[in-house]
């Protein structure tokens, strides 16, 4: 499967300007949250709740469970902002890692197992998303274009894992390719995405 295919040139260009409130913009807010600043926490909520809820719902499907996980994640942000270290990565990566991990852990838990059996094979990011501002739409478009610059196998490996919540072994069997191939396609795909978006730290 399309391993040798050529990818288009990365369309996003190098590090564009980041949306206020995401990426590094979150770090100073999180530092204030770490001091118990409730206003800063409200700003963190506003800057991240759409992404958190959106990705959790994409992975879990169920709106009620997604709301519950979103709530847990954001309260965990409040509780552990004292442990956020900007030298180790952006605030956005810190929050989104927490969110995605929770969603994936939940979907893989036994409780969710039955529901998951009934689920259709997960697809990519899809285009039915609610984006609220022009800037958000712009960011979404940029990420989408960068995803399109991946090879087919890179893109499928990344999206099945990330949006579908599958392990790399599951992805390998879904795509019928060796496990080692999937591991490297995930890595190469993320490297290409990173370079396209210009988000290297």
């Amino acid at each position, binding site marked *: 499967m399309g391993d040798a295919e050529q990818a288009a040139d990365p369309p996003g260009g190098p590090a564009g300007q980041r949306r206020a409130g995401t990426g590094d913009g979150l770090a100073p807010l999180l530092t204030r949250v770490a001091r118990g600043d409730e206003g800063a926490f409200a700003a963190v909520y506003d800057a991240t709740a759409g992404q958190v809820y959106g990705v959790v719902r994409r992975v879990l499907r169920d709106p009620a469970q997604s709301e519950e996980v979103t709530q847990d994640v954001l309260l965990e942000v409040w509780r552990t902002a004292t442990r956020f*270290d900007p030298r180790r990565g952006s605030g956005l*990566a810190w929050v989104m890692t927490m969110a995605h991990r929770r969603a994936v852990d939940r979907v893989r838990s036994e409780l969710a197992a039955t529901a998951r059996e009934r689920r259709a094979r997960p697809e990519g990011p899809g285009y039915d998303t609610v984006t609220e501002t022009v800037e958000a739409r712009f960011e979404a478009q*940029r990420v989408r274009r960068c995803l399109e610059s991946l090879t087919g196998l890179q893109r499928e490996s990344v999206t099945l894992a990330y949006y579908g919540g599958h392990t790399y072994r599951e992805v390998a069997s879904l795509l019928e390719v060796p496990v080692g191939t999937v591991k490297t396609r995930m890595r190469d795909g993320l490297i290409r995405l990173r370079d396209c978006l210009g988000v290297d730290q």
Partner: protein
Amino acid sequence: MRLSRGDLHTLAGPYALDALTGQDRDRFERHLGRCEPCRQEAGSLREAAARLPEVTVAGPPEGLRARVLAAAAAIRQAPPVTPGMGQQAVLARRAGRSPVLVPRLALAVAGGIILVLLAVGSLAVTSQHRAGQDQAHSRAIAAVMTAPDARMVTGHATAGGTCTVVMSHSDRALVLTTRKLPRLPAAKGYQVWLMGPSGVRKAGMLPRAHQGMTAPMVVSGLASRDEVALTAEPAAGSGHPTSHMILVLALP
């Protein structure tokens, strides 16, 4: 399936996508502690993965923001693991509590807190109080929730509905919320009682329910072997219970 040492270096991609199972993830995280190149790579791939949610942004449900902000106000923050910014403030905030027990307990009761507080959209009704009172109220709730000996217990009322109590003997206080108790006419209200070996004491009126739930109520002056009881009384409250108890909750 066991991963060989050489395999570990190839897992940064799956790791950044949370595509490792628990066991593989644990092994790789231990590896990250020893392997600088993998740590660098995993970090930079995480940054890329963190942009993937841009494509699936969705408006969170109405009311979530108010619930999360209200709950945060009552949840004590964890102390930092390593010295760094914010530490002084955090140390000040946890003054008077055992530094070891607080984070562990905060974690242990986090589920309970969230249940109790998020059951409670009405906590967000700050207009009922002046800001200062509201903050003191939040602090009193947080004190019970994060007490080293905090326990949670839930009981069913005879007429339907539940009552959840988080209590601390060391604070001699409890936080009480209810869900879906039967509605009472406007002239009536639910009154809370503490019943101990020495008799029955008034513990205050339950606030009016919003969407079937009452905001957390703090009851202090708790004694050992007290039980919590609920009766329906005239809205202004009674000196002693005048109707049968719809709930008696033994405390741990």
